[in-house]
């Protein structure tokens, strides 16, 4: 399976935002001095009067967006995942508490800011964001998933945390034809022996692991859990019952992220053995995101290893 190449995650993001901005005159985009890095500044080129750069001020950014939303605008905050978490308390006490229609779109999540090292790599944000009442947490798998999902995210009423990476975007869903919906997961591959559930770019690893397991005679289903919150309990329960084993993979800490969210459903609905593939500590600098994914073994090799353990 080739990784392939397509438009980067952040370039796709900017393209879709500009398209949506044409249709909705209330859409306003704001950032905190990372307009170029996030590609949010593409919106400025088209709609200068609906684009705000507040400077390096993430706390102010969040409450500024909250105020714009309260008065009737549709703010889209675009920032690095890591630095938006600096304003987690503002997100909690203003956007979440008042249930404001603010979209937080973050780039540079997970290991995607490979060069900058551990200070810039957000591996805790899913855990932080999914605890917040009223918030939805969505992770697109690739550029195709952004094109499919982002218009729905923007038209959704209520706050959403939308977690995007940077350049790296292996093709995962581009050949697939499905409509995105918040709260729904998507079966990327059918299987009967075990289920691999993941989100984001690591679904490429999930698919590759499933292919190799197939060669060893193990039939693995793969699920794109793009909506981590609300979570698709029905599909998770169905596959827990059908396959009896679950392996999760995420570009995030195994504490509190995608795997934890799945486990919370599994233990209530139909307990089966589970394994969690993800980060257990901070990252470091590397020349590519892929180098980090492999260095920390948050990859298909670990999924295969854990799957074989579960099959014993």
């Amino acid at each position: 399976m080739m990784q392939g190449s397509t438009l980067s995650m952040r370039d796709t993001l900017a393209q879709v935002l500009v398209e949506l901005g044409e249709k909705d005159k209330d859409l306003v985009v704001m950032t905190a001095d990372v307009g170029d890095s996030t590609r949010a500044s593409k919106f400025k080129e088209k709609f200068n009067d609906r684009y705000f750069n507040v400077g390096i001020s993430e706390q102010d950014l969040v409450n500024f967006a909250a105020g714009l939303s309260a008065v009737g605008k549709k703010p889209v905050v675009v920032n690095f995942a890591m630095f938006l978490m600096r304003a987690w308390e503002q997100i909690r006490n203003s956007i979440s508490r008042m249930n404001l229609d603010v979209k937080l779109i973050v780039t540079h999540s997970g290991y995607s800011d490979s060069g900058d090292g551990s200070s810039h790599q957000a591996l805790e944000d899913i855990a932080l964001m999914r605890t917040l009442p009223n918030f939805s947490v969505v992770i697109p798998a690739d550029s195709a998933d952004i094109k499919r999902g982002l218009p729905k995210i923007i038209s959704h009423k209520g706050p959403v945390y939308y977690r995007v990476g940077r350049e790296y975007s292996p093709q995962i869903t581009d050949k697939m034809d499905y409509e995105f919906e918040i709260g729904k997961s998507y079966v990327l591959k059918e299987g009967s022996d075990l289920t691999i559930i993941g989100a984001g770019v690591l679904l490429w690893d999930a698919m590759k692991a499933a292919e190799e397991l197939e060669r060893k005679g193990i039939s693995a289903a793969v699920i794109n859990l793009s909506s981590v919150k609300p979570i698709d309990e029905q599909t998770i329960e169905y596959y827990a019952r059908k396959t009896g084993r679950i392996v999760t993979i995420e570009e995030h800490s195994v504490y509190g992220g995608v795997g934890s969210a799945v486990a919370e459903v599994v233990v209530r609905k139909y307990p089966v053995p589970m394994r969690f593939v993800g980060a257990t500590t901070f990252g470091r600098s590397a020349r590519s995101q892929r180098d980090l994914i492999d260095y920390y073994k948050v990859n298909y090799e670990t999924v295969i290893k854990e799957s074989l353990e579960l099959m014993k």
Partner: protein
Amino acid sequence: MGSDIAPMGIKGERDGIPISIDEINKLRKVASKARNNVIKMQFYDHSIHVGSSLSSIEILTALIFRYLRDSESKYDKDWLILSKGHAAPGLYAVLAEKGLIPEEELWKIQDISGLLQGHPEIFIPGIDMSTGSLGQGLSFGIGVATGIRMQGGKGKVYVIMGDGEQDEGEIWEAMTHAVTRKLDNLISFIEINNYQLDGSVDDIKPKHFLPDVWKAVGWRTLFCDGHDFASLIDTIEEAHKIREPVVIFAKTLRGKGFPVIENTKVQRASPDDARKYLINA
């Protein structure tokens, strides 16, 4: 704040609507009733912030009774943001005088069956922003004021902050942001009552530099006596004429009008002292 602060009570030009003695007396009456009700509220719940509330009573009364315009449109209504959310009992008491909150709800403050929360929540009538965590109201106000201006609305945004609150880093982010946007529909108050939770601001973190800092950043800085309606209204009138962000430093007293706690860090008196006060009130 020490005596080296710029002099308080500088009067503005008087070409706005002049305030009559009758109106001042009316506002005083409202403030006095609200003040007594805040003190009475501590009979029912002993943990409310009485001192901070009494510091804000006249500012809230002036804004709610003289200035705030309501409108069906969010862009044409005026917004009141109590960034120092712990003064909520003061705000509730004034809103009750305005008829927005039933008076009997005041006695149920913080009760499990009551409407009124320890800090403002938008589900309470008259509340425009849920606050309670300090330093967040000004940024929110900038968002509202920016949205109003984009839409060509008539609304003004009033943000009330405390002096202790100025310690928060987000205030710096917001005060520099507002100037960048040249917002002329945003009026901020900073109450200078010289106390924050743990003690006097001079002991915890001095703030004598604040007016200079706000001015240097690009805000128009006005000063008034935050308990004197003539001074307050003069200053608000002047603020309305200025076509850039305005901050009003309002000298106030923590616990104003309640002698046992007035001008101290103490937030509330004993029930006995409160009773004695109310009998004489």
